[in-house]
């Protein structure tokens, strides 16, 4: 715990906690839509942005935000057009993103493997006060958007056609999700790294839904698991000298195993009780 007296460690912790809260709040909509791996793909694209930043001596975080937003909007437009060729189009975009990133980083002055690893797997310890300001600002914006628009985003991800007939601005909401995904990926890049970003969006949601019944309770529990895993990940990685991103993801996965176990125990007596509770209507279920 002595480590937390160092300012760089406190900055690392603050950044991790913000992302631990914001990533699952966004990730729940992606999981609901069965787009769990989209964050991973946008992460690949963001690496090209990092390469552009290093090559042009701009802030890599800033260029990564711009490139990954462009990538996310492109993905959304492909998804909207139709599903048939979408899968292949996404694959091309993602591999183009990571290959472009590796080449551009290699061409830059700072072409060491260490700098590539820093973005691929995260490096909290080098997080500057300016980085924390950017992470806090963008993280708060993502979190507020996800909470304020929850009813509309829930309706959209649950049934897009129904949302359209309800007169909701479906395209704007889809683009909001695409842009916030890109922003979350980029700010989480410094904490867990581009290759593990998606885990922080998806794993806490997967863990939460083992024991929850509704959307709102899943979202609340997922954010709680996310923030605890991120906090514990930073502290533990400082203590035992491991990579903070990977440590955080392993803790979130441990939470998933735990809730899966709890869920299995919980549902067993519940299922036995169910037929008695449904005794009143003689439901002839024709459709299985």
């Amino acid at each position, binding site marked *: 715990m002595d480590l937390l007296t160092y300012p760089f460690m406190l900055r690392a912790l603050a950044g991790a906690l913000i992302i631990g809260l914001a990533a699952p709040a966004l990730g729940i909509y992606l999981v609901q839509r069965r787009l769990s791996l989209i964050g991973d793909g946008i992460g690949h694209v963001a690496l090209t942005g990092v390469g552009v930043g290093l090559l042009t001596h701009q802030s890599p975080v800033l260029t990564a935000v711009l490139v990954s937003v462009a990538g996310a909007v492109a993905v959304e437009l492909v998804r909207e057009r139709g599903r048939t060729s979408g899968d292949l189009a996404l694959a091309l975009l993602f591999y183009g993103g990571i290959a472009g990133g590796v080449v551009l980083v290699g061409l830059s002055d700072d072409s060491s493997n260490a700098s590539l690893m820093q973005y691929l797997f995260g490096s909290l310890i080098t997080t500057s006060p300016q980085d924390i300001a950017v992470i806090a600002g963008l993280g708060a914006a993502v979190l507020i958007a996800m909470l304020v628009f929850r*009813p509309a985003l829930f309706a959209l991800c649950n049934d897009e056609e129904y949302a359209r*007939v309800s007169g*909701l601005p479906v395209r704007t909401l889809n683009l909001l999700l695409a842009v916030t995904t890109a922003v979350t990926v980029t700010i989480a890049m410094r904490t867990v790294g581009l290759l593990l970003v998606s885990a922080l969006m998806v794993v806490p949601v997967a863990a939460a839904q083992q024991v929850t019944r509704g959307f709102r309770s899943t979202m609340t529990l997922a954010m709680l698991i996310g923030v605890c895993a991120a906090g514990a990940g930073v502290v533990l990685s400082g203590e035992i000298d491991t990579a903070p991103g990977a440590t955080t993801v392993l803790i979130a996965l441990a939470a998933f195993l735990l809730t899966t176990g709890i869920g299995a125990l919980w549902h067993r007596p519940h299922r036995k009780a169910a037929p008695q509770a449904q005794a009143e209507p003689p439901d002839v279920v024709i*459709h*299985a």
Partner: protein
Amino acid sequence: MSVVEVRHLAAGYDGREILRDVDLSVASGDVVAVLGANGSGKSTLIRTILGLVPVRRGEIDLFGTAQRRFRQWSRIGYVPQRIGAGSGVPATVGEVVASGRLARRGLFRPPGAADRAAVHEALAAVGLLDRIGDPVGTLSGGQQQRTLIARALAGKPDLLVLDEPTAGVDAASQEAFAGALTEFAANGGTIMLVLHELGPLRPLIGRAVVVHDGRIAHEGVPPEPAGHHAEPGHDHVHPHADEAKAGICEWAPTEGTKAY
């Protein structure tokens, strides 16, 4: 007043024209069944009216306004064929039904007491109030369909549009359905529903429209029951569980029917 007015409508997907030349008028308070074989275009017709399928030619007016300029979507309650694909995360019956309030409430206003009251009222109308806190995934197919009806009713629409609401639904749910729709129609609501068979909804339906090969083939009073339903002494007011299967009515033009 005309609620839905369709003139010379042609529509389709991906270069394939499914509707060729459709004229249809639905007045306030009408209960219209859209019948037809699989692939006839009956679902495409209502999906085009709702703006889910692009119009190729012709015009659609909703409540007297051209569909392109229509913004009062809270006046329309849509009941799709089945619960949406986005069910990766659990959601309670109450949460799904609450989505029905969005058209009325808008994007920015948080749900209030009126929204909660409307959700309760709609769930009571379909007989699912006791399941409000249960995950939708634990419900039977018929109960999930009733949840979707409740979602549409929660917005207090003037027009209900239903796409094969009774397909593969258990008898108890079919009756709950018929009850909720009868109440909605009795309060002056307009209903358009795509059906494969009339079943327990038959007494409710004022007019049947048959779509064939992208056109309206027949329009008129609903067909008389055939087979088991036509037997003497058959009581139509209280359909029983086993009749849901037997009540598949082949449509044939009868007296009072316009044949084109």
